[in-house]
């Protein structure tokens, strides 16, 4: 019941979040900016969908969070990778690589 079916897109978003956080703790806005910048705005997700994902991944024990002050002195919720998250990131990166490989093979021979 709780383990929602992971469709590809949601899986992708989870992977992007984990990867982004592997560089260190960050708040939601920061994660959105980072994903946008690094992908050259190619992956512009609706920013609102980021937060449910963050909460879900945190509830699953992959992230931890705490309220901290930003450099500009504002209160924000910072997320960071938990140990389980780090392991999950590895798994998902391999998973992703396999998927890409598969898809590109199909594209080449089709």
């Amino acid at each position: 019941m709780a383990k929602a079916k992971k469709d590809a897109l949601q899986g992708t978003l989870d992977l992007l979040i984990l990867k982004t956080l592997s560089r260190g703790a960050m708040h939601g806005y920061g994660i959105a900016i980072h994903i946008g910048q690094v992908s050259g705005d190619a992956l512009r997700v609706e920013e609102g969908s980021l937060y449910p994902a963050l909460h879900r991944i945190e509830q699953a024990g992959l992230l931890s969070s705490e309220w901290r002050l930003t450099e500009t002195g504002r209160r924000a919720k910072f997320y960071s990778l938990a140990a389980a998250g780090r392991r999950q990131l590895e798994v998902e990166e391999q998973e992703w690589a396999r998927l890409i490989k598969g898809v590109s093979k199909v594209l080449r021979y089709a």
Partner: protein
Amino acid sequence: MRRMLHALRSAIYKTRLEREMEEEIAFHLNMRERDGHTPEEARTRFGSVVRATEQMRDSHTSRFLESVEQDVRYALRALRRSPVFTAVAVASLALGIGANSAIFTVTNAVLLKLLPVERPEALRLLAWTSGPKRVMSSVNGSYERKPGGRAGSDSFSYPVYLALKKNPFFEDMFAFKAWSGVTTVIGGESERTRVDLVSGNLYETLGVRPVAGRAITPADDVAGTPSHVVVLGYNYWKRRFGSAAGALNSTIRVNNEPFTVIGVNPPSFDGFRAGDPVDLFLPLASIPVIDQHISREDASFWWLDIMGRLQPGVSEGSALAGMNVALQQAVRATLPQQREEAPRMEFKPGGKALNSGSFHTTIYLFTGLVGLVLLIACANLASLLLARATSRTREIAVRLALGAGRWRVVRQILTESMVLAIAGGAAGAILGYLGKDVIPNLMGNDWDRPEVQFPFDYKVLGFTLLLSVVTALLFGLIPALLATRQDVGPALKAGGRSSTRTGSQMRLGKLLVVSQIALSILLLVAAGLFSRTLVNLRGSALGFNPDRVLLVSVSPPQSLYRGEKRTEMYERVLARLRTVSGVRTATMSASALVSGDADTTGFRPTGRQVPANDEDLTYVHDVMPDYFATMGIPILAGRAIDARDSRSGAKVAVINQALARRFFPNQKAIGTTFTDAGKHGTMLIVGICGDSKYVRMREDAPPTFYRAGSQTDAFFDDAAVFALKTEVDPTLIIKAAREAISMEDRNLAPFAIRTQEQQIDQNLAPARTFAMLASSFGAVALLLVCIGIYGIMAYNVARRTGEMGIRMALGAQKSAVLGLVLRETLVVAAAGVTLGLFAALLAARLTASLLYNLKPYDPASLAGAALLMLLFAAASGLIPARRAASVEPGAALREE
């Protein structure tokens, strides 16, 4: 489901979670604006705030569900690790809950359940009360004496019913009459059946639809030309016809008249009384078939139950006032003499079982007893949980130290008690299902009616479930809260043993044991009172000799045997029975002794005025020759009723000593004459016999006179009982006696063949049931209390191993330590016993009406209960005490 859980959860968490989500989103939008976007742009990039918030909430809800699953799995694992604890906890709950749901099944059927008909709550049963001068000359049906010579009944005459039907307050009214002991012959096999006579509109008005065939209609219920039709009760159809469709349109003989089966009732409707299913439903107009002496048109004979559904919008008060006027008018119109007082109308709820009144005392008493058992089981569970939580202090401390929230740990412990309670509840429901018919069948007799079965419906299951959950929450919460209210540091260091805080848990544990003991004392006192009542009843003087007496009831159809013909037939059967080998004497009487059946009438010595209120107090018994010899009732003066007292002879009677004492103190009774309240005429007293019990075992011999059976007009009209004094074991001649009777006429259908001893046993059934249940509940309570005492003392000793070690190192003898622990046990027990005795003194009054030759504050029962409890308490304290005494001082101190 989701939404519900969410609502539940957010009710607890709302403020923090919602606040944080809002702040998080606000921060995001704010940052966008700071980075140079307009608020509108920020919102567009973000998408729907509402949807995002909702999805965030969802992720928390599913997490909650997951953690519940985790808790349950953890609880199951923990319980599997301590199987003894689990078994004891589940078993004690199962006993408590099982007993309660078994009793609740009966309560539900009798007191709560509504008739399975349309709008049962609007149904009213009509009833009346009247002063001492009553208009009706005879009442057949419920009859209740009230203070001041007043009386009340639910029975009305047929003419009054017709008059009452025309009223604006009720939608429609119908009438019915319950009758038992009607002889029915199906395929050559005869048996006694339970019949309801119903007015033609009953089915239509109630909205009862037969499962097969058709219902009785007004066209079937026409006086003079009643159609001989019958609707079968569902259970009867199942039993006698194997639920065969061929039953429809077949012919059965009711009191030797042919009746056509036109329909079968639904299983849900089997009459108006709980636990007393009706076999056959006949139109009211067939009453002459049931009893030829009854005429529907007789206005002075009150016998019918009347029920109706109140019109919507009519108030109870105005309907009652209006119906009261209607009743006065109906009485005036149908009865000629007007000097007497007209009865006043009353309403009773019609949608519930009509016989609930007769079960009240029993049900309330049993509900009380099983309630005590459940309380004891709960206290037991609570002290077990407490001890368990205490022994897990270290584990809990570790979890708290590792950062688990207190609420999380409390929830974990609560989940465990919930799992226990649900397991106990499930086992209890099964026990309750198995036990639901035990009590009604203990109370019933073993030779007549088929087994009583009460329905086990969703309400009973709901009740059981509710009990389990409430139990778990109530008795699991306190130990959980206590166990988590700790300073992590000392608990970890002390290993959960000698931290000072466990003192309060000890006190709570002792308090639980004290209350358990007090509650058990109540049960033990009840067990004592009821057992002693049973012993007293068994030991009470009967005044007759039940040894080797066989009783056989018969109920010949009136259509075959009336008046003189009936008497002659009985005399012929008696002659046949006397020739059966092994029979010493054979006789017959209107009813069996101590069977609950008896007739009362007036006793008016010739030439003397007797106060009117004495009338009801004289009992009459119609007997054939040899009655006194057969039953072993001694003739003290004069002679018994014998063959001389035939139909043509002078009318005679024998009176018992109680009657002689009452009406002839210091006077000669033999040779004087008297009349009774009926039309029997003047009788000559020819003998005085010893006092013997008549109606029931609880009642000492009432003033009674015996009439010569052959001289009474309506001799043994309904049913009568042959009594045979035998040379051998009476059960050995059952077959021969049956044959002798059917040789006379196959229609005689002997029923209820039993020995007089069995009859006595049957009359003691309620007393025996009370004694048995109270004793077994008492035994269960004792067992639970022993577990409780053992648990708390064992824990106490373990906790104080160090102290014991020091005491012994300082030179205390083993016996001194043993005494110390035993003394502590007995102090707890004595406190509980004192409290229990006090409560018993207050509560015992409630049982007064159920006791026999016993005061509710019977010293033997009270002292016995106290002594038994102290003994068992000492015994269960002995094992921990011996363990304390065997402590090795050195080892104990090292451990510390």
